[in-house]
């Protein structure tokens, strides 16, 4: 049903159920917002109506109405720019700023902050209100996420990300009145909670209250330490997002520029996590075929995503036998680098520094898990996010957009199209299916585009014929979707052979460490498309055909699933039901 209303005297007709804000957008009338947040392609809507920045005048209504959550009604007359509305909006912003630190220059969200942008947009140059400001302790307890509650504006977007989207349920409103803030219950430190460090809250936070734990300086220090050999690995999803930090179009593939930039920063070798992704496929597919043919411990779940793994350990500990025991690509890379590669170049593992560039904040946590530090030497020493790498490139004065394309170093730099698509939801499963099809059929299968598992949908299901076996597979992204699917499995209502799960909606292209999308999900779609473009453009598109992988097994590991492979490339999970 259509509803007719007028905004600033302009008639407009919209569907019933629309909000004033949506109707105004149709007329290209801009109403400022702050707490309002949507991620269209995942059907995520956050309309708490709490900041009151979007208030407008509605004829006949005694008080101002929040445009973001007031549904339109027939004959409504709205005015967005009356003195009353503008005055109220300015006052609200003034109040927010009266309890917000003014350290914008050094804030991790400087120039990415929506409160800052709003102050600029509304031309607020003089503050009327002053008074007490919040003084909470900063939470730097985890390896991944920093919390500075003095900056929290109670927009509650992080709460929606944590509770509704991810169903992790760590963040919620606590305290009353002026001391109200979003935090874990009992004001616990993040490290003491069930937080999985997916960083969706960091993506959602419009201000500097949530950000990553910054490891740029340790990287600079390592790069300038003559006694260390410093190598770097870059995750698949980084290359299709980092360009955005330098004003390039979303979806630009900047692999070559990134490699050049890393070399210019001073890394001794620039390697690719994609190499390790191919390695992961070798191990995981071996396990998949074994479990399917022997029909035990099904379904097999992917284990590349540390956020998802921690979620399972806390929320579904009874299912910890399900994920593949294969380590994630990041950790496989670290393990191989500190053994095979270190040996090859004659450097002691403790003198080899492995740096990861990840689209992810949970990877910072994963690298610090004690089981990934044999003899006290971490396999992956330092993890920085896409954003942190962009900062370093800027800091070094490198003109990223102008760089020539570089190529990865050998031997841990060669990869295939199967590895590139790890960065999008469905990619890991598709990569595994490509290898499984060849191995089961014993030939080079040509049909390798498994399109049913691609795209942004939160839960995708497909039955694919792999070498004569009807394989029932599912792909999940977003932990809320994962929860739904796992509960179905627990109830015995779903029956799959293999399931890929990624913590972030859309996969790593939407990781907590990626350039901020501020709710513009078209950017995510472009990043995803770029990954599949990159895949299609590569000469080798199946992991088991990666020549350096073949060489690695010949020289060092034997065959997939071997004893040596198990020792280096596999792990076990921990029941964290009780913390």
């Amino acid at each position, binding site marked *: 049903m259509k509803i007719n209303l007028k905004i600033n005297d302009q008639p407009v007709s919209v569907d019933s159920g629309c909000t004033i804000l949506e109707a105004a957008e149709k007329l290209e009338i801009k109403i400022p917002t702050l707490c309002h947040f949507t991620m269209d392609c995942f059907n995520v809507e956050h309309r708490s*109506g709490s900041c009151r920045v979007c208030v407008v005048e509605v004829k006949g209504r005694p008080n101002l109405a929040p445009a973001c959550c007031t549904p339109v009604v027939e004959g409504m007359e709205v005015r967005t720019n009356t003195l009353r509305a503008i005055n109220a909006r300015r006052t609200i912003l003034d109040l927010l700023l009266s309890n917000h630190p003014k350290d914008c220059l050094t804030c991790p969200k400087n120039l990415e902050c929506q409160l800052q942008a709003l102050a600029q947009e509304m031309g607020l140059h003089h503050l009327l209100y002053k008074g007490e400001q919040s003084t909470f302790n900063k939470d730097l307890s985890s390896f991944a996420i920093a919390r500075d509650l003095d900056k929290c504006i109670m927009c509650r977007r992080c709460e929606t990300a944590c509770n509704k989207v991810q169903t992790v349920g760590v963040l919620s409103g606590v305290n009353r009145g002026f001391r109200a803030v979003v935090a874990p219950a009992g004001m616990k430190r993040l490290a003491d909670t069930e937080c999985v460090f997916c960083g969706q809250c960091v993506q959602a936070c419009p201000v500097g209250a949530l950000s990553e734990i910054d490891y740029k300086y340790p990287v600079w220090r390592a790069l300038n330490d003559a006694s260390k050999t410093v190598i770097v690995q870059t995750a698949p999803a980084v290359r299709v997002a980092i360009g955005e930090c330098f004003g390039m179009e979303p979806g630009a593939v900047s692999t070559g520029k990134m490699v050049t930039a890393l070399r210019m920063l001073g890394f001794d070798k620039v390697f690719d996590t994609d190499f390790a992704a191919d390695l992961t496929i070798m191990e995981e597919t071996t396990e998949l075929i074994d479990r399917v043919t022997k029909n035990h411990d099904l379904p097999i779940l992917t284990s590349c995503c540390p956020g998802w793994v921690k979620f399972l350990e806390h929320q579904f500990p009874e299912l910890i036998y399900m994920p593949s025991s294969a380590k994630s690509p990041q950790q496989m890379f670290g393990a191989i680098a500190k053994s095979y590669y270190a040996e090859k170049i004659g450097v002691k593992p403790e003198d080899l520094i492995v740096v990861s560039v990840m689209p992810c904040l949970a990877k910072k946590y994963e690298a610090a898990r004690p089981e990934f530090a044999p003899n006290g030497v971490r396999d992956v020493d330092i993890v920085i996010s896409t954003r942190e790498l962009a900062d370093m490139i800027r800091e070094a004065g490198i003109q990223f957009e102008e760089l020539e394309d570089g190529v990865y170093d050998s031997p841990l730099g060669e990869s295939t199209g199967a590895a590139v698509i790890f960065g999008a939801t469905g990619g890991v499963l598709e990569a595994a299916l490509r290898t499984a099809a060849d191995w089961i059929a014993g030939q080079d299968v040509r049909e390798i585009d498994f399109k049913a598992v691609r795209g942004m949908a939160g839960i995708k299901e497909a039955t694919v014929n792999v070498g004569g076996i009807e394989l029932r597979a599912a792909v999940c992204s977003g932990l809320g979707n994962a929860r739904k699917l796992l509960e179905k499995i627990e109830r015995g209502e779903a029956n799959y052979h293999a399931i890929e799960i990624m913590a972030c909606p859309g996969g790593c292209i939407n990781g907590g460490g990626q350039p901020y999308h501020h709710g513009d999900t078209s950017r995510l779609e472009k990043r995803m498309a770029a990954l599949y473009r990159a895949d299609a453009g590569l000469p080798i598109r199946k992991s088991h055909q990666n020549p350096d992988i073949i060489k690695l097994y010949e020289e060092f590991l034997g065959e997939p699933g071997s004893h040596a492979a198990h020792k280096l490339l596999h792990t076990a999970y921990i029941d964290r039901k009780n913390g």
Partner: protein
Amino acid sequence: MNIKTPEALAKMAGVLKSRPKPPVQILVSVGTCGLAAGAGAVLKSIYDEIVERRLENAVEVVEVGCMGLCYAEPVIMLNDRRSGKRLIYGDVTPQQVPAIIAAGTDSIAAGTRTIERSWYYPEFEKPEPGELQARIVLRNTGRLNPEKLEQYIENDGYTALAKALTTMTPQQVIDTILASGLRGRGGGGFPTGRKWQFAAAQPAGEKFIICNADEGDPGAFMDRAVLEGDPHSVLEAMAIGGYAIGANTGVIYIRAEYPLAVRRLENAIGQAREAGLLGKNLFGSGFDFDIQIKFGAGAFVCGEETALIHSIEGMRGEPTVKPPFPAVEGLWKRPTVVNNVETFACVAAIIRKGAEWFKSLGTTGSPGTKVFALAGKISKVGLAEVPMGTTLRDIIYRIGDGIRDGRQFKAVQTGGPSGGCITAKNLDLPIDYEALKSIGSMMGSGGMIVMDEDDCMVNIAKFFLEFTLDESCGKCTPCRIGNRRLFEMLEEITDGRGTLETIEKLKALSAIIKDTALCGLGQTSPNPVLSTLANFPDEYIAHVKEGRCPAGVCQKLIHFDISDRCVGCGLCLKNCPVNAISGEKRQRHTIDQSKCIKCGVCFRVCKFHAVDKK
């Protein structure tokens, strides 16, 4: 006992009424207030005395809820059924009990305090000529034992439910409530019948009816009195409401700080279930209804209906934007009606006696009665129920007996922290919802806090705002930060740091908070500021322009001096906690202002009025 038909109920009431009763009845008020004042010991002493004198068959002791005479607790009332005489004693001690029982109703026991009957008329649903109170809501409170279902049944209990279920359609019930003009007694004054109509109009399926017993206004205790004194009247009304809207489940949301009310409710629910008055197929009508109790953790904002619903659902108790209204999408996303305790307490009487009867009391726009909790500087603190349209002067001077210690009336705050203050010029205004709104205040839940000349109105505004500050959920910006800034400005003024500009900023920010806050709590939070500003501008100006607090309350703005009336007795010197006073014996003393903390001890102890407060 299982009452399956209206006839069975009537028969039972008949039997109970015709039961022989002891000639003398002693009512003992054992509400929270009575018990806190020592009613437990008094009660024990009464029982002991009865046993001692072998009066078991001559005297009936009834433990009742609050009689409304809070200023005189513990209170007991003697009724002589033969002579019709009655006596009310206040401030009773266990030691006085033997003399009171010995005297009976024939004479007043020596050394006791009796209470004039005009204060307390529980049995009149219409005021007697010359009297002010009328009791609908409190019809049984203070008169019946709330823990005994028989007493409720004996006094027409559950006949309204029987009538509704067996002789009326749900729509007829709603029409009766609509016609009665009953409005929400929780403060908003929304027509109850319309609320019911909205919920009834929603497609059939699971619906809920909720009793809001999260009474939280400072100085308001009428809901507690009803729940402690007459729980069955609320249960009966909820079942009637459930029938009207098509809900089979009722939820009472009550603050956990009311343990006695909770206990009596639990007891009443158990009795009603056992008697078949709650549960399946009530009065053979095929209508099922049961009630559960949910506890609030003492957050004021949970009195707001959407916050209340979220709290029941186990979420953080904070309001959400309406629409959707609870009548459309409420508890567990089902159509839900939320009514206040006092509203429910009117329902059974309306169904029993009809809409016309209810409308014969009160004003055209606001029929019926309203219970007020009188508190503050009033002589007789307590509960009073009066028809809507009674003047404040009657309530404060005739029922409350004027201002304590012969001081001068200054203002009365209605509507609690969301309301405003009313000054002497409006004392003769007949009050109902609209009248209070027109003078910048509101009905609220019915708290009435009386202030005298010793109250500083800036400080009063600060007091109420501080309450809101603590109780705000912090969800929306204007309430979370705006009220904090308002409070800080008031502090500036009471500390003598304010300017005329501060007052202007107060006004401007108050207006914007009212205009933009998310829920009723925030939208009304600046009311105490605005109404004190409107009614007592001179007091604000005295603070900021002259650095003076006219009422002598704001510590930073007052100082104490010793005048030449001082005889040098040394009493102030001895009592001063910070040794700020010096002087030789029999010489005029002086106060060292740099040491003085303005505690006022010298002012109070001086027997010669030689200490001046300025």
